[in-house]
């Protein structure tokens, strides 16, 4: 106890030193000069309480950790008795997937407009999370500029529409292709770099793209962004009150029903769901293909991979390019959904949120990422009064997750078979 007292005291005092000058003293401008004033009593009390809490926590850390160890974690233990065959598992999984997809399809018709809109946003993040998961979770390349590819996709659609009048359906694959080629061009030189250099270079690349979008005013509209991007149409049927494109008919006029703006929202949701399902399907297939296995092998041990004759540049490049293309699809959909894009939407924070989704969900695990995307998007909406603390919590959560459970909430499980004695 005694040998823990001094370190605990140091930690407590350090907390006080850290918190007081920034939280306890506020800078206020008075006239031309700058003054400070003390924060309100409540904040002061909080600072003291926080220091005390740190002190007490450090004092009883060992005991607390012992207690924490006994709390059962949601970890599936390996039970040799309950061996489920791969075929059985596949069957269960299929049933489960079917039920989830069915619910996801039917749900929006009974939900409020706002909720469906939110769900669409969640689906965009799911797509981005799944795309980044290829790069970070499977191939183990830390990409901090993923939002750049998202921006490329979004601007591809917006610009192709603005200058060439191309429709969403033509632009969607083009946006994916554009983002993929940006990924390829960036990836080709930088993928030789070691992990943390790669992180910084991709971060710099993300910033470069944002600055270019911001300053290339005559092409991208600069900080004002691009507006009136049309929503996608369904085989020539538009969901607005009046058809805007020539040759198109408004949805409600075609079916002779009353106009309802929620049709559009539901259509966008279903479209997003379709894109997500496509993403999941493609990535699942890729993971079982040799290239997917090579990604994971490379993540685990690069040197071993190279000595087994795998070409690391091609493997990394494929992960980078494919990951980028999904961001491109998501970007094109995003700009169609919003109808307006500006460089504001593509800041580093966005990259950090997507990364946080991948980290929280468990690198490599698709189900985990879907759940994490839902949590990360829906929770801030539910706790609107804590909006201001959202990013603070993100940061804290990323640190704590890395300390407590670096593999994420639902770590990836490899497809495997077990031998039985029978």
């Amino acid at each position, binding site marked *: 106890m005694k040998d823990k007292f001094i370190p605990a005291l140091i930690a407590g005092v350090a907390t006080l030193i850290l918190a007081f000058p920034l939280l306890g003293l506020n800078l206020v401008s008075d006239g031309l000069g700058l003054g400070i004033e003390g924060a309100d009593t409540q904040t002061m009390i909080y600072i003291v309480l926080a220091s005390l809490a740190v002190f007490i926590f450090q004092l009883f850390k060992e005991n607390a950790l012992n207690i924490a160890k006994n709390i059962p974690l949601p970890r599936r233990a390996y039970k040799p008795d309950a061996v489920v065959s791969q075929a059985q598992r596949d069957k269960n999984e299929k049933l489960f997937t079917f039920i989830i997809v069915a619910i996801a399809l039917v749900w929006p018709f009974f939900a409020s407009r706002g909720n469906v809109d939110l769900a669409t946003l969640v689906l965009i993040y799911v797509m981005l999370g799944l795309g980044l998961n290829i790069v970070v979770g499977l191939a183990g390349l830390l990409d901090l500029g993923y939002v750049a590819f998202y921006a490329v996709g979004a601007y591809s659609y917006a610009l192709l529409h603005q200058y060439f009048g191309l429709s969403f359906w033509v632009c969607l694959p083009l946006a994916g292709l554009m983002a993929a080629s940006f990924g390829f061009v960036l990836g080709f030189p930088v993928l030789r770099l070691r992990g943390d250099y790669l992180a910084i270079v991709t971060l710099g690349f993300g910033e470069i793209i944002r600055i270019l979008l911001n300053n290339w005013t005559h092409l991208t509209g600069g900080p004002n962004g691009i507006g009136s991007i049309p929503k996608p149409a369904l085989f020539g049927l538009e969901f607005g009150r009046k058809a805007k494109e020539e040759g198109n008919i408004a949805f409600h006029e075609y079916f002779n029903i009353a106009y309802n703006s929620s049709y559009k929202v539901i259509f966008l949701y279903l479209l997003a769901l379709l894109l997500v399902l496509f993403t999941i399907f493609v990535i699942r297939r890729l993971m079982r293909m040799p290239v997917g296995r090579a990604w994971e092998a490379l993540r685990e041990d690069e040197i071993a991979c190279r000595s087994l004759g795998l070409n690391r540049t091609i493997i990394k490049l494929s992960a980078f390019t494919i990951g980028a293309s999904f961001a491109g699809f998501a970007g094109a959909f995003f700009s169609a959904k919003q109808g307006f894009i500006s460089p504001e939407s593509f800041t580093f924070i966005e990259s950090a949120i997507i990364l946080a989704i991948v980290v929280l969900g468990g690198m490599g695990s698709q189900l985990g990422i879907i759940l994490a995307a839902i949590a990360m998007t829906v929770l801030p909406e539910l706790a609107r009064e804590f909006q201001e603390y959202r990013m603070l919590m993100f940061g804290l959560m990323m*640190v704590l997750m890395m300390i407590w459970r670096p593999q994420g909430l639902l770590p990836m499980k490899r497809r495997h078979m077990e031998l039985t004695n029978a």
Partner: protein
Amino acid sequence: MLETSLYFIQQLLNGLTIGSTYALIAIGYTMVYGIIGMINFAHGEIYMIGMYISFVAISGLTMLGVEYLPLILFITLLISVFISSTYGWAVERVAYRPVRGGNRLIALISAIGMSIFLQNYVRIAQGSRDIAMPSLIQGGWSMGPLDGFQATLSYMQVVIFIVTFITMTGLTFFIAKSRMGRACRAVSEDMKMAGLLGINTNRIISLTFVIGAALAAVAGLLLGLYYGVTNPYIGFIAGLKAFTAAVLGGIGSIPGAMLGGLVLGVTESMTSAYFSSEYKDVVSFGLLILILLFRPTGLLGKPEVEKI
């Protein structure tokens, strides 16, 4: 002709001023990288915090009625260095030590989380708006015709050069001559072996974070006085720039960080002057990418041998 060369001299001076502060921040990156081989992602935020604390200290001292400027600056320097070092120490304790030894990706993500956390902590504590402070050190020496363009070397720039020079010299001597400095070099050479020989490696790692944070705080004070404006978001770009400087000079090498900072500062000010100030960040990041491609060891770095 005279005007063009005066303009050039002015840009060179501005570039060297900014560059020397980049160098101060870059040393933090380079030292941490040299010892634990990881990028201290939260370092830019420490610089930003140093700037805020300097502002708080200067306004506090002014309100207390301290009039003598050098005294204000000296006390502010001490306060800012002390508190920022505590931040550096805490960052290492919270975000690095628990995850050290694991996958590099894990430490990197935890550091990014820390960086986001610190940035938003300051935003919540002090507000997200720009905070301006009237400049304390005014005036300077001018050169050139009275009716034409004059190159100015302001007293503030001189202060920045002198303080940076003293700090760098102090650090170089500390690393080269002192017991702790020797231990630092030993740990960066071979951490396991240094530990076996009785060096407290944990303490040395803490020390490098503290020194880095102290230098970042010095840079924060200097640039705070120079620009007179701060906000919670400056740390991100400044950190990225300083990292570029560290890589440019050769990461892990302290003289390299100094050189890299100066080269980057001059490049940036020349870009703004002769090309376009909007694209100066693009040019620095472009430079970073080019350096990593063609000379990953930087200007003064040693080539790295990959051990199996």
